[in-house]
């Protein structure tokens, strides 16, 4: 049974079940994330992590249970409305707007009013300044005016992180943000996430334990569509069952 959420609970996943053609990807899963916190989600491939994010953003609909955001039930809302409430996700496979330039990607994401009429206004100087800052942050300044479609894989990753930040959502969902990044970039990403936490609520999925270590945040382990363990990296590394299903031999998990 889900525990009663406290007042600061921003994201409240209540007892959801998600299935695909009879296959249960998530079974009776509950999860609360307090406002302003940073939470890490790990678990074996196929555990249902991405599916959980899919459910939060409305890409898939739970068969049972509901998702609440700031107290409001969102699991029946259309996707753009959910996004409009302040939830933005970075996908596992980078999804940038390929026909627009890198800068346009950032400017568009940063818009507050995303309605058909609201969008007609040209971006303000402040918005341009913000885009420039994000270009610097993601190392894409030199690439600002080429179409995002001709970026390399890793550059798209960075752009997408930039977009998520630009959207300035209350809740950031990052699905494997460091996939394909070098160790140094991974560290930069961790630092970036720390600057975001506090003002934003962040939920990160990753398989890179170095990165997870750097995040220094509470961890939830999913397994077969359910919460398997909660804890910090120390305790989880000591847990033989977690090693068995996920981490593997201790040597690798250093």
């Amino acid at each position: 049974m889900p525990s009663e959420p406290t007042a600061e609970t921003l994201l409240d996943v209540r007892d959801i079940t998600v299935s695909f053609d009879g296959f249960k990807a998530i079974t009776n899963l509950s999860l609360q994330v307090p406002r302003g916190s940073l939470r890490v989600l790990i678990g074996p491939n196929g555990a249902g992590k991405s599916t959980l994010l899919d459910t939060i953003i409305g890409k898939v609909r739970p068969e049972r249970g509901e998702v609440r955001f700031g107290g409001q039930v969102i699991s029946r809302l259309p996707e753009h409305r959910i996004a409009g409430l302040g939830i933005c996700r970075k996908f596992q496979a980078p999804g940038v707007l390929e026909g627009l330039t890198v800068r346009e990607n950032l400017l568009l994401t940063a818009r507050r009013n995303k309605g058909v009429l609201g969008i007609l206004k040209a971006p303000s100087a402040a918005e341009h300044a913000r885009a420039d800052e994000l270009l610097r942050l993601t190392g894409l300044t030199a690439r600002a005016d080429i179409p995002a479609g001709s970026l390399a894989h890793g550059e798209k990753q960075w752009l997408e992180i930039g977009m998520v930040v630009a959207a300035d959502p209350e809740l950031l969902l990052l699905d494997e943000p460091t996939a394909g990044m070098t160790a140094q970039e991974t560290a930069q990403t961790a630092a970036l996430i720390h600057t975001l936490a506090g003002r934003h609520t962040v939920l990160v999925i990753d398989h890179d334990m170095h990165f997870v270590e750097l995040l220094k945040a509470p961890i939830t382990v999913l397994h077969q569509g359910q919460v398997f363990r909660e804890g910090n990296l120390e305790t989880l590394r000591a847990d033989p069952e977690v090693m068995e299903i996920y981490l593997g031999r201790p040597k690798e998990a250093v």
Partner: protein
Amino acid sequence: MLKLENVTAAYGQSPVLFGIDLEVRDAEAVTLIGRNGVGKTTLLRAITGLHPLTGGAVRLNGAQVEREAAFTRARQGLAYVPQGRGLFGHLTVEENLRMGLPALSGRAAATRAVPDLVYDLFPICRDMGSRKAGNLSGGQQQQVAIGRALVTQPRYLLLDEPTEGIQPSIVQEIEAALTRIRTELRVAVLLVEQYLDFAWSFADRYYVMQKGRVVETGQTADTPTHAVQRYLGV
């Protein structure tokens, strides 16, 4: 032996590879590292025949293949596991594996079946055999993609960031599997990887790319990973 001589390639008008020389000897494991966007993926695609060269030569066992179509190169023992896995989403896992069989055409010795070794190495290929590949999670797909490449009984295996998005225990398994593939099947492996610990523990030699050029090469055993880190910084 797989050998590249002065390979150049471009996207439209803009060149991305500038005279790459590189070789992978039989049964050797070589890793290719470099920052995002330096052209690693492009290079692998050029070797497989999925991206046209603008100059230079690709040799398989001495024979020049850079004019040949991708499918004939595959039939000569070149297998490719792309970044993003490239599974056939609407086909079942089982069918995806069987899609490795056409590469065996014209090779007399080859048996036309999915080798048991694949199921040994990646049990998921059996367990999820009848699921649509497109519905698997990222890590599951990666395993199927490597398994499928093995079905082609390759002599050269090109892997583009195979650990990306894979859970730690399976990274270990993939490493073990690749090592077995190398030693038992004597397959030469060219591995593009960002995860240096993995690359170094697996490969014999390394190449470092920067802005479309190979800038350094050496034995992994002689070079500590931190010595090449500077090429990967932002």
